[in-house]
């Protein structure tokens, strides 16, 4: 250790050359770390600026403004004469129809199904692993579930498309093989590991003294886990769910492969859906650069970004509130 040389008992009024060098080194390192941190933020801001800039054409170009006005994007339009007004997404057409509503519904459906499956699975799995599982089992369980996170989403999508789709169709007697349920289940496979890992970390981070106090007061292990450990880890578990939600809303490949990609407005989960992210992926390849359709796809990107941003904000403020209540109650 170099510090030993500095620990001399004689007080030195001026800094030695070695100390000065050390101080300089320290400053350089601090600067580097700050720069790295800011690079991340800068990249994020630059991406946002780029995406927003490409989407801006939608509002500045008169041709685009006429073809894809806000009312055309969000209000029902008459697409075939003599029929009631509907929400239709058909951007490649002699008269492009650009309603975002079917895409919102599609994203909402797949995300809800996946969260409905993945949150209980992930959280209860984590609770089991952290509180009840024998040590040996836990050492196998955790890496195995984390391994699931390493499976590429194309593979998960392929699995959902080939195996799960037929199974789900036979099970529920659904009309279309590829639908919101299949896509949601495929998504759940991708987000269970996320929710499990982060929740498990939050649960194990709960101080031992909480458990000991609860058990000493006569609570059963189950009561301890359910009424003491789980609430104490609530902020971490919420963070896990938000992370999972963010992944589910933006995940593209699984949804693209397993949802059928039909932009239908309906409440049934058995119908095929088209999500926002899958729409970008499917249509970006051949779109004419600078056309209204191109700007529209970037606009969808901005919307996706806005969703996750707002959600994260709410989650953070809620977490803070819960933390305050928990620590306030304890103190």
């Amino acid at each position, binding site marked *: 250790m170099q510090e030993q040389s500095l620990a001399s008992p004689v007080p030195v009024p001026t800094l030695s050359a070695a100390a000065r060098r050390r101080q300089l080194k320290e400053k350089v390192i601090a600067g580097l770390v700050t720069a790295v941190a800011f690079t991340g933020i800068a990249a994020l801001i630059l991406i946002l600026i780029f995406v927003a800039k490409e989407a801006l054409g939608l509002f500045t170009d008169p041709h685009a403004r006429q073809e894809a006005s806000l009312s055309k994007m969000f209000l029902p339009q008459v697409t075939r004469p003599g029929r009631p007004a509907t929400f239709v997404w058909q951007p490649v057409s002699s008269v492009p129809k650009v309603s975002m509503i079917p895409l919102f519904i599609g994203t909402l459906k797949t995300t809800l199904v996946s969260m409905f499956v993945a949150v209980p699975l992930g959280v209860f799995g984590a609770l089991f692993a952290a509180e009840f599982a024998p040590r040996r089992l836990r050492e196998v369980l955790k890496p195995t579930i984390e391994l699931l996170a390493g499976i590429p989403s194309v593979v998960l999508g392929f699995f959902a498309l080939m195996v799960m789709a037929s199974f789900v169709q036979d099970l529920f007697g659904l009309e279309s*093989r590829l639908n919101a349920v299949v896509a949601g289940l495929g998504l759940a496979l991708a987000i269970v590991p996320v929710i499990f890992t982060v929740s498990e970390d939050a649960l194990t981070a709960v101080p031992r003294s909480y458990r000991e106090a609860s058990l000493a007061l006569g609570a059963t292990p189950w009561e301890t886990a359910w009424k003491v450990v789980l609430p104490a880890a609530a902020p971490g578990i919420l963070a896990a769910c938000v992370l999972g939600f963010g992944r589910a809303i933006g995940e593209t490949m699984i949804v*693209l*492969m397993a949802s*059928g*990609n039909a932009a239908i407005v309906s409440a049934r989960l058995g119908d095929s859906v088209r999500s926002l992210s899958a729409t970008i992926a499917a*249509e970006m390849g051949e779109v004419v650069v600078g056309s209204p359709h191109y700007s529209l796809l970037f606009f969808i990107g901005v919307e996706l970004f806005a969703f996750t941003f707002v959600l994260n904000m709410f989650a953070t403020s809620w977490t803070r509130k819960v933390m305050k209540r928990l620590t306030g109650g304890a103190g």
Partner: protein
Amino acid sequence: MKKTLLSSLTALVALATPLAAQAGTLTVKGSDTMVILVQRWAEEFMKKNPGTKVQVTGGGSGTGLSALQNGTTDIAMSSREMKEAEQEKLRARFSTTGVEIPVAKDGVTFYVNETNPVTALTVEQLKGIYLGDTTNWKDVGGPAANIVLYSRENSSGTYSFVKDNVLGGDDYAANAQTLPGTAAVVNAVAKEKNGIGYGGAAYAKGVKELKIKKGSEEFAPTADNVKSGKYPLSRNLFFYLRNKPSGEAKAFIDFTLSPEGQAVVTKVGYFPVK
């Protein structure tokens, strides 16, 4: 230094090649459907004729034909015939109506599940199905079950072909599921008892290809029927030139129509004209 040496060397090679007497580049522009095919031809051709450079760009048939009128491309590739207005423009500027050379054929096949008793449909029936007006198989002679529609992504050339030639330019029904790639459509229809989908004929495995009914006759999407034009859902893919091809253009077009060039057509998934 090295670069100039290299370029002078290539120039020498170009001069030595008799076909490429006017060494330079040949530009081909137009139909996005044809880009992949012509790109492949260009690669093969340039391998044989290193002195000639063939530049292939897409943009759509209309773009290619207007480039031909402006004189900015040597060959226009088009998946439709030249319109009269376009011929007029060409005549006004170059006093020629252009030369039309069909180089390949493109056809689309409709598939159903192998268990489906329906074997042939008219184009009108297909239109009704894909517009969402006909929703049950029993309306077209099948079992009483809802039709499950499979379509392609709107970036696909086949999507536009069906839209133009079957739907008459109208939009697909909203509940048509769009899948990435013909293989995905075939796979989905193979597994979906009540499904219907479309794509190139070369892909049809594990599904039943629908014949197209025209009057009292039915036509299967075979190479013969497509070549003779009897199969209704096929179209010619053209090269358009201002004048009779000569020099490099002639060499390139001769290559595309040669047995070797036509073999490429089959490989890419279209039908040969010869």
